């Protein structure tokens, strides 16, 4: 029997240890009465106190998949597999990675190790595929300005999905595809998206028989001053703290394509 009611799910990307933003996003999603909450991976990185993320995921039944960071932390690898090319970016990424690895408990590492790479579910009649980078590669960057529509159509064909949702790049966007299909980058909770604002973003996917698919990007404000203070106490790099406080990226800049880079300050 086909449902006649609206189905609504929340999709979070990249938590990056930002348990304060995660808490705020879960509260917002619950208030909106979502039917399920999904996390598209990368629980660790960047922020303080990695182990504070996991009880929240557990208590609120967040259904998680494994990002590149989770694969690395879970399997005790040497680095985060983030895909940076610039030596400066790799330097900061390694500080953050070493901190996260050292402060993630064995039980939580085991949890990360066991996560699936992809999740599929039905949103009404729509086949939804959740992945981290792309359906074909966990750390593939799908930027808005370097991802052609015909490439996304091909992914939707090959992976038999009406909606593909990913994260990994840190900046939300969406694109209409052929035959009413959609690609969505759900953004990240862990860090502002290089627009000079301190809020972060998650995404609501909903479907109703009357209006079809709806994608809503939801801004989340949280106590970013407290996060910055805790990052200072944990001796995390000033460059990361600046990004939390200003909303401008100070690292990971070399991986940005021209259009996305121009929108930032650095």
């Amino acid at each position, binding site marked *: 029997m086909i449902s006649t009611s609206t189905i609504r799910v929340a999709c979070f990307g990249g938590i990056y240890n930002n348990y304060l933003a995660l808490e705020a996003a879960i509260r917002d999603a619950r208030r909106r009465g979502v039917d399920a909450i999904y996390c598209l991976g990368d629980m660790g990185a960047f922020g303080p106190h990695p182990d504070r993320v996991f009880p929240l995921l557990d208590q609120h039944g967040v259904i998680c998949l494994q990002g590149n960071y989770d694969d690395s932390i879970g399997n005790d690898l040497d680095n985060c597999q983030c895909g940076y090319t610039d030596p400066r970016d790799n330097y900061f990424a390694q500080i953050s990675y070493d901190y996260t690895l050292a402060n993630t408990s064995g039980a939580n590492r085991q949890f990360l190790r066991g996560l699936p790479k992809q999740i599929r579910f039905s949103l009404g009649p729509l086949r939804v595929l959740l992945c981290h980078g792309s359906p074909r590669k966990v750390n593939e*960057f799908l930027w808005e300005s370097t991802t052609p529509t015909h*490439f996304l159509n091909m992914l939707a064909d090959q992976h038999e999905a009406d909606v593909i949702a990913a994260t990994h790049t840190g900046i939300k966007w969406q694109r209409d595809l052929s035959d009413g299909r959609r690609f969505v980058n759900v953004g990240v909770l862990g860090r502002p998206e290089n627009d000079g604002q301190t809020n972060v973003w998650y995404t609501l996917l909903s479907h109703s028989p009357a209006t079809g698919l709806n994608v809503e990007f939801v801004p989340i404000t949280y106590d970013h001053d407290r996060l910055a203070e805790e990052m200072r106490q944990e001796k995390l790099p000033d460059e990361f703290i600046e990004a939390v406080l200003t909303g401008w990226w100070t690292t990971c800049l070399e991986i940005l394509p021209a259009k996305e880079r121009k929108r930032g300050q650095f």
Partner: protein
Amino acid sequence: MSTTAPTIALSHLDHLWFQVAGTLCNLTCHHCFISCSPKNNAFGFLSLDEVKRRLEESVALGVKEYYFTGGEPFLNPDMVPILVETLHYGPATVLTNGTVLKDEWLDTLAAAERASLYSLEFRVSIDGFSPETNDPIRGDGTFARALRGVIKLVEHGFLPIITAARTWPDEQEREVVGRFVRVLQDAGYSRPRLKILPTLRIGAEQQRTCGYDETERVTQDMMTGYDRSQLVCEHSRIVTDRGVHVCPILIESPDALLDQTLAAAGSPYTIQHGACFTCYQYGAICSNASSGFETSANLSGGQRT
């Protein structure tokens, strides 16, 4: 132990290159890996119609990024309309020496990029942070001319990626890159983007240095545990006026011409050349950082020698 060369299948045509200016260039760089010069017309220009036909062909194959090289692409009179057309299909990157750019072209291209969903990237080749280091390789006066080109691009709202072939010893890398950044900032490019490339000891560079010796080849054994996506031929092909070749580096090798259509040129390729060894060592040397192909080799460090 196997010493035979491995054969690499194309996993997916992510990057489609165009040898859009053939081998014609206004400069004669001593390290050019395909011996481009003002007199080398071994490969010809690609017309706007030819590029349009290939762009259409590329849609069904799900191509992700388009790259344009030469020679000097902007010697091709169709170059500006070619880039404008490409931005209807996907992101475009053009590799230029920056010495022939005109304001009216950049006005048109800036407007085309603003109207497009996609990024237009300029990669400008400069091989040293001063005339003393750059000009012996690229020609007298080329440092100043290329730097003027960079600033012209910045003034038109672009953020060019400066590419430099590593013609300095490895231990000087940090200092050279640091000085490069300062020179660009002093010239007016406040947030320079840099891409450092290994030299390829073929073409003119073979004369400048020593070429490859016969032990510098990729073998089957070397592929154990190696991430094949680091190899350009695993995810790229290039169109010239002769057909479709395996990669932008090897167009002068007869065995690199694979077929006449993009679909047919997806056949596997045996990586038997010295340049394949450099590609293997450094990984994804041709793509932009935003494409993420440099990941494994750069981070693991295991494959770099």
